[in-house]
């Protein structure tokens, strides 16, 4: 795996050295490293000749650009009203018990982070969760467990 510095340089090379590249570069880092470390933010500021506070300002604006360490798989359970009525609390509790983490936390083996998200736009098929970029609709606690177990098996 590339070092953070090399990764940033590669992303900047690909996207260009102007301010417009900030978003794709930050997204690229999150894809590889699951979050934006201090080192990564500073590298971006340096490469794009931006103030570090500006880079952090942009990063902190977006929910999907995390600035705290996250697991390899990020589970986001929709917490908005329809999914709530369809039982999202049960889903969260089940996952929380199985993974032994609370919402906002990451497992010891760094495989999973459990988060909630605002409306994912799947109200007709709630409750729903997102794992990384994949949507899982019409969940039951059992179904949610099985999906997460699959991820556990395939993540090293």
């Amino acid at each position, binding site marked *: 795996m590339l070092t953070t510095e090399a990764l940033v340089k590669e992303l900047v090379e690909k996207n260009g050295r102007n301010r417009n590249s900030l978003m794709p570069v930050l997204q690229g880092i999150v894809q590889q490293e699951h979050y934006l470390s*201090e080192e990564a*933010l*500073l590298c971006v*500021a*340096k490469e794009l000749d*931006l*103030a*570090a*506070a*500006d*880079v*952090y*300002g942009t990063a*902190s*604006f977006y929910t999907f650009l995390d*600035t705290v360490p996250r697991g390899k798989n990020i589970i986001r359970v929709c917490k908005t009203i329809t999914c709530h009525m369809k039982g999202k609390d049960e889903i969260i509790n089940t996952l929380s018990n199985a993974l032994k983490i609370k919402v906002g936390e990451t497992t010891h083996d760094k495989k999973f982070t459990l988060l909630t998200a605002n409306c994912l736009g799947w109200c007709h098929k709630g409750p729903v969760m997102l794992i990384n970029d994949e949507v899982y609709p019409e969940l039951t606690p059992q179904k949610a467990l099985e999906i997460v177990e699959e991820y556990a098996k395939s993540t090293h």
Partner: protein
Amino acid sequence: MSKYLVNLKINNMPIAVEEGTTILEAAKKLNFRIPTLCNHPDLTVAGNCRVCVVEVKGARLLAAACATPVSEGMEVFTNSEKVRVSRKHIVELLLSEHNADCTKCFKNGHCELQDLASEYRIGDHVFLDLVKPESLIQDISSPSIVKDDSKCIRCQRCVRTCAELQGVSALAVVNKGDHQKISTFLNKPMHEVVCTNCGQCINRCPTGALTERNYIEEVWNAIYDPSKFVVVQTAPATRIALGEDLGIPVGERVTGKMVASLKKLGFNKVLDTDFTADLTIMEEGTELLTRLKRALVDKDEKVVLPMMTSCSPGWIKFQEHMYSDMLDNLSTCKSPQQMFGAVAKTYYADKINIKAQDMVVVSIMPCVAKKFECERPEMRDSGYQDVDYVLTTRELAMMIKQAGIDFNKLSDEHYDSILGESSGAAVIFGASGGVMEAALRTAYEIVTGREVPFTNLNIQPVRGMEGIKDATIKIKNVKPEWSFLEGVDLHVAIAHGLANARQLMEKVRKGEAAYHFIEVMGCPGGCLGGGGQPIPTSPEIRKKRSEAIYQEDEDMPIRKSHENPEIVEIYKEFLGEPLSHKSHDLLHTHYKPRKRY
């Protein structure tokens, strides 16, 4: 190219204004005042606070007057029922997120939001109080600036100031929605980030979210302590601005009154930073000539040019962060404030028979970065902290009010001697271009034996409010010992405001500009626009202060640093000559690279 005139009506009064004028500007011309918070004459338009909303006939929504350009046939109402009710609600909403514990706020009585609340007679809570408990913890990590998020209304004047005027961006908008706040990189404390302590954000903060770290109580305690001998020094730019906080019009000089008030406050001696400004010229002028000689005669490749001034502590910290590869360009001279402290606790203490450990040196400065500067570990060459406390011009005004002094009625008094005599060259340190002009007045005369070839010693090309100025002085008919400078064109440049400084530094780094000497002041207009000066500030106000400074210079009997008799005396009795061993020990310093990000 002339612009089209646009006809409109404001509160039924017709007016024609140039295309592109905002409703706010047009209303001002008709003497209708529209309140503003996020708007500032030095900054770009933001339009986020919404208190300037007005009704435009035919429009569904109210428009922000600061951000809406006029259009043909527009009919604007600045005080309709809809406007008044909305504006009051907007103020109430701002207050619902503002820690309105006004009696305990440093800005009490100097707060634009408080003024607006008072104007609209805001009563009991209409909206829930949404101040976040965690925002109540102030950031007091910086010796210069206190940041209090609970007072912040997120108008972003500070963010724009830091980016647009200073090119630093230590502050940015972080998070979003109800979590939005003004913060630093990763919410680090102010003293850990690239903040230069210039304090320009303080000058533009409409509330008490950004204020100077104040040392008023510490100074009172020193004055009341009978075992302490408290001397005070006043920076050049304080004497032309202090009056603004004490009911005197902008641009009026109050030198004599300021001295009188300081004596009444109980300082043991009232002395002048202008004296050490003259001393700075002797040292810095000689340093420049020495560097030129080493470059031109000795062909010494290690000599670094252009030489850059080092009086402005905001500029110094900027350079340490941003251009740490160019620290050797900086003059090794300490700033006048620090030269004063070092000389006061050695030469002066001896002369008046006071032990240095019993002496407290207080500075009155137009600056908040000076508070940081006096705490730098290098600034202890007397064996003690050379300058103990730094007060801003504003803090001094507060002390004068606390002491019940009727400033307006004071008769002028003179600075104590010694360390109180100064020249006109020293007072112009307070304006952008002033250090350059003062240095040229002395250096030119050292080299040629004649006065600088400008009418009445006024070197006009280095004056004025242009962001970056440059000038060339031809050196002719030199004294024999300076023959290597015969016919040399001395190229100089001046920048004020750190965004301009950055532009100039980029030019220098790329080798696009062959300057010999560069003056940089961290604040717009130089010290007269410093972060410790009375609030508000605007280009107009700074222009008036500048005129006052140059008038003060013209009225001084001595106009050149090297003719200050106290300067002649200190070299004869104590320092020997400029750049002597003793000078190096007390008056010169070094710089340290800091993190760029």
